[in-house]
């Protein structure tokens, strides 16, 4: 553990020396500040601490919807757009050289000639690389937690789920880079591989989602594609699925998706993890997660049920286990290569 601690301290020193780290931290701080600058009064809401005011019947002080809106803004916009995409791209670029520099001749000799085992050294370096994202998201989550608490008097600790989930999302992509980098010693090759796998994973998830919509969602909502109609869709009698053909296609696509890392899926799972606390009298919303709140939107019960089944089709545990297994597999391979290689 002492070795891991020493390597983490070194990683922290490395981060402190990187301009990109401070730049991303600064942008994260600004986005977080912009988020907490949103306020509500009797007539509506304001942004940038009252600089711009907007009148709104639903989004105003005292309305439950305002609280829900505030939380949805975090889970549906800031997390997918900034924390799980742009910040991760920048973190990958920033952390990209860590492993190739580590295994370079002259540098690796310093580490391997010390008493700790190779595997401990390697895992310490890997964990240290995760610090970049960990610190960014921890700061962001803390600001959001405090903003939400002071704004609504509700200390919502579920916001901190963002930290492990988004660090895992980063690790899913980063571990591919580490595997390729330790094998090839190339930063560029490693990053390229990471982005390719990330893109493949995203395509797998989007593909599965689209096929599911055709195979299950639209039949359950009582919709059918009809190019002759003005909107492209016509209402029909709700059905369980679109038939054996679509179901078979879906099963095949879903089987392809299963072993891939669930970068998007895990991000979406945050919606089920972050709940409206209700500690200060959340009324009908107390204890509900932000995903459930979205199911309130369709008016007809069978549509709401179809939406619920659609959004919860992948249990959190399954996405988490398969993603962790993916990361673990590549980390194991990278560790084996690192431990067996002559430098």
């Amino acid at each position, binding site marked *: 553990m002492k070795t891991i601690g020493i390597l983490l301290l070194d990683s922290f020193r490395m981060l402190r020396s990187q301009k990109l780290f401070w730049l991303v931290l600064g942008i994260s701080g600004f986005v977080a500040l912009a988020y907490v600058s949103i306020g509500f009064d009797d007539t509506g809401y304001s942004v940038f601490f009252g600089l711009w005011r907007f009148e709104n019947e639903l989004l105003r002080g005292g309305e439950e919807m305002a609280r829900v809106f505030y939380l949805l803004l975090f889970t549906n916009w800031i997390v997918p757009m900034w924390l799980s995409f742009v910040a991760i791209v920048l973190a990958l670029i920033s952390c990209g050289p860590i492993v190739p520099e580590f295994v370079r001749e*002259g540098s690796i*000799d310093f580490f391997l000639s*010390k008493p700790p085992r190779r595997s401990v050294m390697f895992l310490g370096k890997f964990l240290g690389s995760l610090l970049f994202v960990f610190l960014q998201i921890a700061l962001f989550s803390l600001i959001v937690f405090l903003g939400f608490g002071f704004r609504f008097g509700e200390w919502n600790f579920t916001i901190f789920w963002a930290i492990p989930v988004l660090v895992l999302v980063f690790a899913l992509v980063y571990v591919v880079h580490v595997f390729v980098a330790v094998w090839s010693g190339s930063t560029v090759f490693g990053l390229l591989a990471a982005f390719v796998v990330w893109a493949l994973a995203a395509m797998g998830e989007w593909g599965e989602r689209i096929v599911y919509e055709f195979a299950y969602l639209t039949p359950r909502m009582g919709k059918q594609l009809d190019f002759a109609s003005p909107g492209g869709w016509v209402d029909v009698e709700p059905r369980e699925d679109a038939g054996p053909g679509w179901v078979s296609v879906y099963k095949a696509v879903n089987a392809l998706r299963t072993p891939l890392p669930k970068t998007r899926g895990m991000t979406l799972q945050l919606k089920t993890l972050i709940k409206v606390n209700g500690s200060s009298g959340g009324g009908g919303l107390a204890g509900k997660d932000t995903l459930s709140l979205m199911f309130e939107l369709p008016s007809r019960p069978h549509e709401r049920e179809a939406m619920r089944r659609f959004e919860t089709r992948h249990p959190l545990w399954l996405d988490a286990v398969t993603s962790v297994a993916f990361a673990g597999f590549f980390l194991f391979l990278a560790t084996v290569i690192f431990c*067996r290689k002559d430098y």
Partner: protein
Amino acid sequence: MDEAALELSRVRKIYRGRVEALRGISLEVPRGMIFGLLGPNGAGKSTLVKILTTIIRPTTCEGTMLGRPVGRKDVLRRVGYLPESARFPGYLTGRQVVDYAAGLAGVPAGRGRQRNAELLDLVGMSESRDRRVGTYSKGMVQRIGLAQALVNDPELVLLDEPTDGVDPAGRRDMRNLLVKLRDEGRTVFVNSHLLGELEMVCDAVAILKEGRVVKQGRLDDLTAASRRYEVEAAGEIPAELAARFRADGFEVDGARVGVRGEDPGPVQGVIDVLRSRRAVIAGVHVKRQSLEDLFLESVGGGRE
């Protein structure tokens, strides 16, 4: 504590592609001496040191380092190592590099801090200790590298090209430091191309050629056969006298008469003959083969 610092036998390393870097090295390095490992490029010197420090895994290796089987990580707590062309994280200061090494080597924090200050002073880096390594010259990096290698108070110090990039004053400091380490009872194992540097400090050497040890032993023993005395006259030695000396088995070159061997007895006879002819004796010198000569002879006059 009587065992050798290093006792190696049958050390072989075959890299992928069937390149045989080491072909059954056997080596013994007694404790408390400065030991030089010499060899042309590609002879396997760095490979051997990397095997000792677990950076490279040998194909076969028998023997011990400080009484423990080679390849054991725990023994590295008692070993210091300065890699060839050492690279330390550019974002760390010199002091932090030594701290880092102390931490990884398992030196207790308090002892590490104390050693850090002592060593930075010892290698002449106290004034630059809080500058980032990225701003150091190559010589400064080597000095910091040496400090980090010594932070765990090692019994065995392995130095791979320690004077690489170091200026003449720095080399002198390095030599003095090696002698100091030996005087403290440590064993110093040096890989270097600079034969002149090694000759000044080494007690024993091994010469590698194409992955094999072609010569090893104490420097005095290895060069004993080549020891000779030279009697230098003030002027050219007359031809008939030179012929007489040659007939007696001595070497004559201008004003010098060479007497091979360690026995100074025959030298007295040469001096007597020269004095009887009223020749002025300008000096008597003890000569022996230089390390460079020994090296070139061992590797077949090849390149260093």
